[in-house]
């Protein structure tokens, strides 16, 4: 069925996160361990940079002479070298004009080309560690590759975000009527805080929140221009998460002037002051990735874990329209005609009839609504 299923906004759900290394490394935990969100669970050594030493070109000598000279200097594949260490010494005509070639870094000789006389020196590897991201129990391990952590808590998905994983304390900006954020709404001290509330922050507000130490900002919508200024470039394709930004930004509804839905805002308010894990990574393709806000909690006041709600449209389903001319409007499905219906563009589409919250009765393509 062609419609956008609603984004997740669940008070209590079973959450499993698989943490993966980009290359084979070491697993630092075992199945059954309990971890905190900041605990390191995987590590690996990232290979260092390879420096290609084009000695023959630099010294103006033949590759054969380079090979002879490095052999004389006992330089061979696998040898460890220090920065500044002599790789080669070459004597010019009649032993005059001696020239030297030094290693530009600490590293290991990885290859010596017999054709070009080029020498490759690989810098030492650098450590890479992966943290748990959410607190929970380790339930699965793929040795040296990945660790899966399971927990129970709230999960809310945004529609779009920028910036990667951050951990902080959720802080309600308490913006009445969910209006645009002003500078006065931003607390003077925001260190390690994930601010939420309001809509359409200006670039000045975004920068100010980041400057005051916030690690995350969750808003209803963002203006295209403010996003471009925050990123420093125009975003062309909806694949995000690796941006070099000081604060992760999550938009729950879209671009323009939309407010955070009641469902999401009321859920966020329940966790005001609690620790949360957020990630702005978005990938709007097959296997879509949406930004997320996760708060792990003990679930004391709710014994039953919520199952994923039905992903199908039914009479009475609460929906939001995601395209003009009713963009952003909320309503309830009142009719689900089976046959294709002619819409204003002249196309025939599967539609639904909905009663919007402002009382209007409208016909909308099913592809243009999402469940709320």
């Amino acid at each position, binding site marked *: 069925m062609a419609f956008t299923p609603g984004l997740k906004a669940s008070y209590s759900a079973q959450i499993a996160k698989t943490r993966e290394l980009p*290359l*084979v490394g070491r697993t630092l935990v075992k199945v059954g361990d309990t971890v905190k969100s900041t605990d390191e669970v995987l590590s690996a050594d990232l290979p260092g940079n390879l420096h*290609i030493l*084009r000695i023959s070109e630099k010294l103006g000598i033949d590759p054969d002479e380079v090979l002879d000279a490095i052999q004389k200097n006992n330089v061979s594949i696998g040898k460890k070298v220090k920065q500044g260490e002599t790789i080669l010494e070459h004597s010019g005509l009649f032993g005059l004009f001696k020239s030297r070639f030094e290693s530009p870094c600490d590293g290991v000789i990885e290859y010596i*080309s017999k054709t070009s006389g080029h020498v490759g020196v690989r810098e030492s590897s650098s450590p890479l560690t992966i943290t748990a991201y959410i607190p929970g129990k380790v339930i699965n391990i793929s040795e040296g590759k990945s660790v899966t952590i399971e927990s129970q808590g709230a999960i809310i998905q945004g529609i779009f975000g920028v910036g990667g994983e951050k951990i902080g304390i959720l802080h309600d900006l308490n913006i009445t009527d969910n209006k645009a954020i002003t500078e006065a709404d931003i607390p003077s001290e925001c260190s390690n805080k994930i601010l939420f509330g309001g809509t359409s922050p200006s670039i000045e507000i975004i920068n100010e929140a980041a400057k005051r130490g916030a690690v995350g900002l969750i808003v209803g919508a963002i203006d295209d221009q403010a996003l471009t200024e925050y990123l420093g470039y125009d975003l062309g394709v909806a694949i995000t998460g690796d941006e070099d930004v000081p604060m992760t930004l999550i938009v729950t509804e879209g671009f323009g002037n939309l407010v955070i839905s009641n469902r999401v805002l009321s859920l966020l308010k329940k966790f005001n002051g609690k620790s949360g894990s957020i990630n702005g990574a978005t990938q709007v393709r097959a*296997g879509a990735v949406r930004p997320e806000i996760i708060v792990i909690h003990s679930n004391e006041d709710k014994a039953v874990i919520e199952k994923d709600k039905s992903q199908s449209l039914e009479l009475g389903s609460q929906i939001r329209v995601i395209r003009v001319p009713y963009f952003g409007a909320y309503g309830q499905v009142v009719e689900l005609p089976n046959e294709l219906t002619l819409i204003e563009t002249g196309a025939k589409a599967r539609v639904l009839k909905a009663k919007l919250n402002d009382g209007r009765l409208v016909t909308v393509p099913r592809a243009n609504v999402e469940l709320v």
Partner: protein
Amino acid sequence: MRTDPLALITVLVTDCGSTTTKAVLFEKKPDGWRQTFRGEAPTTVEEPVADVTVGALNAFTEIEEISGRKFLRYSGHSVEDVPFIVTESDQSKGIDLYLSTSSAGGGLQMIVCGVVKEMSAESAARAALGAGAIVLDTLSADDGREEHEKIERIRHLKPDIVLLTGGIDGGTKSHVIEVAELLLAASPKPRFGETLKLPIIYAGNKEAKNEVSEILKGIAHIESVENIRPTLEEENLKPARDLIHDFFLKHVMSHAPGYGKLLKWTPVPVMPTPGAVGKMIHDFAIRRSLQVVAADIGGATTDVFSVFKNNKGSEFVFNRTVSANLGMSYSIANVLIEAKTAGIKRWLPYEMSDNEIHDRLRNKMIRPTSIPQSIDDLNLEQAVCREALRLSFLHHRKLAVGLSGQRQSRGIADIFTQSTGREELVDLKALDLVIGSGGVLSHAPDRAQALLMMLDAYELEGLTQLAVDSIFMLPHLGVFSTVHPEAAEEILMRDCLINLGHAIAPIYPQKFKDPILAIVKLEGKEIGKVRKDEVTLIRSNSIGSGKVQLSIEPTHKTIDVGVGRGEPNLKEIEIGQVGIVLDGRNRPINFPQDEKERISWQQKIYDNLTLKY
């Protein structure tokens, strides 16, 4: 399964795309080969299913339900062995052959490397594109980037295959060795199977083969083929393309989720989707001696294919390019960035603020499956389509130059012209047929909208026929044509291509004053006049159907209607579904500078074509 063309009666074909797996049934009926039924289901290469055959089986099941023909031995679950009933004596059951193409998981993604940007690197890009790949980056020793920038770039990308070329046979080896060293320094990781070695194809100076292998054997699975540029005058793409297809099956497909099973279901190699489309267009153009441009505009990318005669007119040359970030949903904001708001706005027959355009397109980007409901939203999407096609076509024209995809010789004199504005292969006046594919064109509510989008985007010249692919069947036909080319072409003409009609666009001097540019006649009877700066449509219902003799007579010796200045253009045409568009705008199209004037100019075009706004 049968592969003898004469033994085929029922053939099932899938295209496993990034989002949807589309299955079609081709059947030999008493009146010939037809496409009869179609089913589709979401592609299932991602978690939690992670098995492409599940989506394929769902699409097959839909065809079984719609057609009433039983051809699955098992249904509802994925199996290791072949799931099909092969037709035996009971002709009402089973299939004779199953075939597939694939672009799931983003298709075949490659990095190509050469020594000289406009020589070996360009040839390498042509080889990869022609094989159906997306070229993530083209690197060369002289591409203007610093070495560390190139290393960073290679590391960042995760290609399926790398194609390394450079140097002519017997020439200097050091440059191509330096490029190999660059790859070693970057040590790129393959997209699938992180513990596997990256497949690298070496197609450069044969004298450097051993050294290059020696340098790269530690980080890659490397195989060599004949040099892509054995001499300065020769380009030899076929061996590299064949090995790319081979690597695609061996190293890419076989590691993609579920493909191990799918590959066992068919006796014919699975083709990359754009490779199959390219083959169909190439073969069709050559068999009919037509010069063709085809574009497939998708959500993320736009593929452009062309077949034009070379400069000597002696041989047809096929080219394919892919604009990886120009599309109608995931990449729609990138079209906005490249075309700028003004570029999109100029096609709209009404006012819309820059902010409104930005927000609507960004919202489409993050909710890609939504569809336009209002006319203004539809017109905005169609304006974006014009720009995506225009930019992709510009990109294509830059690459469709000089050398061909086939082995052919060029004179030394041609080489000297290569670096200084090489002659383009794309010749709009010689272009016979434009084919459009992709939802925004194939599913335009009014076919005249599809025709106008392509006419505007390509700025067609002279006389050109326009068609759309009815249900994106070109990949299926491409792979079917490897077994039964005649049947594939029969289906192409009867069920795939929808003939929209023709565009007539005379070219005239900028200072030309007279209002009438040409007289258009069918079977000797005047049906309309091409008026300067106006676009009008003669709808097919007013001129009938079938094959007719068309004549376009320029009103002045300086006007070119496609066959030279002052010359009348006489041609037998088949009337299309929309009719004949008479386009009196000069080239390049001059848009009125004043916004109100431009809007009313566009409104007049929409009115003349009876399009809503």
